């Protein structure tokens, strides 16, 4: 059972009300256990539904990574929250779940969070020579050197 495997890795599990929230169990984990957690989910036939991030530097001085695992058929959503310090890196789980490859690239692109061990960490949605990370709360669109003043 996934719950048993996870209880060894992440003791901090909260059952959430599925009818209101849309997922079942929420865990708070430290970032360096993520690869083991991913392995546990892989062995239990879960898939990585998405990874996303929150810029919580104002609230908790941290970026919060949100991993959501689910299984086909009867939904069983497990959400892993992992807070990392603004200048820290997180381990990549792309080796376990290739789906994480692009999600991690997107988080790198949008938040500037780096992932250790990612096969090819580069921008995905913004252009390669873009600077800045758009989804940061204090983001200001950098002036585009190629755009003239009269362009709307």
């Amino acid at each position, binding site marked *: 059972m996934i719950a048993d495997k996870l209880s060894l890795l992440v003791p901090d599990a909260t059952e959430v009300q599925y009818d209101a*929230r849309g997922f079942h169990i929420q865990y708070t984990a430290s970032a360096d256990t993520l690869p083991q957690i991913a392995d546990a989910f892989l062995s239990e036939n879960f898939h990585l539904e*998405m990874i996303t991030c929150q810029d919580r530097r104002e609230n908790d001085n941290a970026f919060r990574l949100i991993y959501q695992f689910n299984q086909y058929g009867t939904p069983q959503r497990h959400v892993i929250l992992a807070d990392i310090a603004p200048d820290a890196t997180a381990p990549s789980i792309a080796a376990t779940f290739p*789906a994480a490859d692009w999600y991690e690239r997107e988080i790198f692109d949008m938040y500037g969070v780096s992932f250790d061990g990612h096969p090819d960490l580069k*921008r*995905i949605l913004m252009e390669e020579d873009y600077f800045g990370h*758009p989804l940061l709360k204090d*983001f200001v669109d950098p002036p585009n050197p190629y755009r003239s003043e009269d362009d709307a």
Partner: protein
Amino acid sequence: MNSRYEVEQDPKSRDTYYLNMGPQHPSTHGVMRIKLHLDGERIISAEPIIGYGHRAHEKMAENRDYIQFLPNPSRVDYLGGMIYNIGYCQAVERAMNIEVPERAEYIRIICNELNRISSHLLWLGTFLMDLGAFTPFLYAFDDREKILDILDRITGSRLTYCYARFGGVILDIDDVFLDNVSNFCTYFVERLKEYEKLVIGNVIFRERTIGVGIFAPDLAQKYAITGPCLRAMGHVHDVRKDEPYGIYDRFDFDVPTQTEGDCFARTLVRVEEMRQSIRIIEQAVSDMPDGLFLAARVPKRIRPPEGDYYFCVESPRGNFGMYIASDGSDIPFRLKLRTPSFSHISAMPAVMAGTMLADAVAILGSIDIVVPEIDR
């Protein structure tokens, strides 16, 4: 280059080259690029490069309140606009516990399924055009036009709908709409048979799709494949059945599946899905209750209680999920759109390696991508 998915090269041929399929290419269905490493016509590796259509919907969500974000979801995926629009409303409704009147729920079901059929029709046309068959494209568009006309009449828009509101829909339907819908259903069931005769039985079509672009069984779990692509691999998974949202649990419909996971299986699944959608619409039309189409008591200010919410709907392409992190204010703290095409395109390096150039086009067509949905 993403070396993990390179297939073994023929040691005798050292002349390989790169071909940019896109950003402007007839069969990427939008502005997307696939960097192909080719040995003759054989693909050694493929790397999708996305982001040309990035419109920062997630950033927009953090800068406007829940009501102002209403028109956005249907622009994320312009072919399943109604489903996205309604899905967003349902996500917020569940977070805020807003009751939706029965009639509105039924209207939503009809609109959802009509939209699904129109999306599948467009897919059928463009997929066959990718394979070089021109004529089915116009047949499919002809029928799609009928759906657009029906929806146009009640929503006022043809593509990027903003019909749903928190607590129902903005305008009521009338008997003419219901007549139109049931007429369309009887007409379309016959048309589907024609499509099957025209397309599925064709020898060249079978040659081009059977055994082409097989999604290996472990691919689903690794890349979180969903929707018709997943059902073509033998998984019985449909959000409408597994975690029914709205009132989908009241309807009687099947989840079509195939086991092969190739382009042909995906075609069969989608064609059968259109038939199931017709079944749902017919049930909804006959059960349509009277009453309010918009809840009378909807909070003036849309402020979901603090916390994380995830809501997922079955879009024509797969699981469309909305992750809403609310801090209790009018404006979402974070709104993540989990789009199915993003996952499917990220699996392309693993699927395309080792196939032919013409297969790449067939695979891209068969997974039914909408580029703005990948880029958001």
